[in-house]
């Protein structure tokens, strides 16, 4: 049984590295990532209500809204933030397709697109759209974002 009843130092695996950090039991992962100890500000606080997706990170390669997870839940799991991608194809695709305007939502979209591109099954168009519906771009640059993600995913319906 895991118990966390007061602020305590835990070791989290973030972007492939073990990081020691003191967390509160009621602390969300978004808060921990962006705090002074880790300083990983790529995950953005938007709605903090699970709606906008700006705070999306990967937990064990699954896109997850970090405002909707307690940090205590992710001990012994692998967290990947946009800082951990290191020159991934999806990042170049966003540049090549001008898939951002103000940029606030970009890291969340990139994490969803990266997870989808790494998925074993090649997605068809409807699946790409379904995954991207998890995130909101208030600049409404959806077509370019779709084009960027589509470009790094094999198309299962392509001849």
């Amino acid at each position: 049984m895991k118990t966390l009843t007061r602020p305590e130092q835990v070791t989290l695996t973030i972007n492939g590295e073990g990081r020691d950090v003191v967390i509160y039991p009621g602390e969300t992962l978004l808060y921990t990532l962006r705090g002074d100890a880790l300083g990983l500000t790529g995950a953005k606080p938007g709605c903090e209500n699970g709606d906008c997706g700006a705070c999306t990170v990967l937990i064990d390669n699954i896109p997850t809204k970090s405002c909707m997870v307690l940090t205590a839940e992710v001990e012994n799991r692998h967290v990947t933030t946009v800082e951990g991608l290191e020159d991934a194809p999806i990042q170049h695709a966003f540049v090549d397709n001008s898939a951002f305007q103000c940029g606030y939502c970009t890291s969340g979209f990139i994490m969803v697109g990266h997870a989808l591109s790494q998925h074993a099954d090649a997605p068809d168009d409807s699946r790409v759209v379904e995954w991207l519906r998890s995130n909101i771009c208030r600049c409404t640059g959806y077509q370019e974002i779709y084009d960027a993600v589509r470009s790094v995913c094999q198309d299962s319906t392509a001849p």
Partner: protein
Amino acid sequence: MIPLSLRYYRADSVDEALELFHKISHEHGKPIFYGGGTEILTRARVQDIDVDAVIDLKGIPALKIHQDKGGRLEFGAALHLTDVAEKNLWPLLTATADRVADHTSRGQITLGGNLLSILPYREAILPFLISDSATARVAGPNGVRTRPFSELFDETLRLSPGEFLISAGVDQDEALGPRFKSRKMTRIDWIDYPLVTVVVTRNPRGAIRAAFSGWTTYPFSSPRIDRALSDGKRSPEERAKEALHHMPAPAVSDIHGSREYREFVTEYTLAGMLRELEDTP
């Protein structure tokens, strides 16, 4: 950050979770069982929930069961909705649960969390409501019991304090036999709470069963509605209109749509689903 002083416990077994709940309650704490956490954290953020300890159930193997065994389909309460969709043991459940929230959120929301949500929708419950063989395995202070959904469901799954859902099951024959349609109708956006979600099945003898979410403050099915929808002598439009007379409560008016609009959308959605089910060979 959640504006509550919380304690976090991750149980490894059913007994451990039950003991923790009992112990914390006995010490005048306010524990709550915790699955995906999306609803609890959302409510905690706006201080709409009074708890001081969460007991995370996701580490309990019995709640991750996901199998087709001995003619029964079994779904652990801690399965994420995306797990249910990807394995797709019960296509009707997949079709319904896969329209809850958005894809990323469905990777966090658990089946048990959806079935026991305080929100009115709980779409994943609809397939169970129209399956006579549906059962729920519930852990509580008196041990683990398996009970028919029909006994446990009265507008919501009636669990007592200190009880939690381990898994839900259904007979494979009943689950996979009928043809089905599942539709979630929203006002504008694809990702939104439903005006109405309708699930309809048609067995090989032509009997129709239907369940609804979003129409009122709880999901429901009704034998009277099923009888009206199964009257093959009438057109789909006539049957859909008749079914609306047998709803157990008036349609709600809320920010998503007025009562009249909900009735209109439900009627044409239902008629279209009946036609699709009956036209396809």
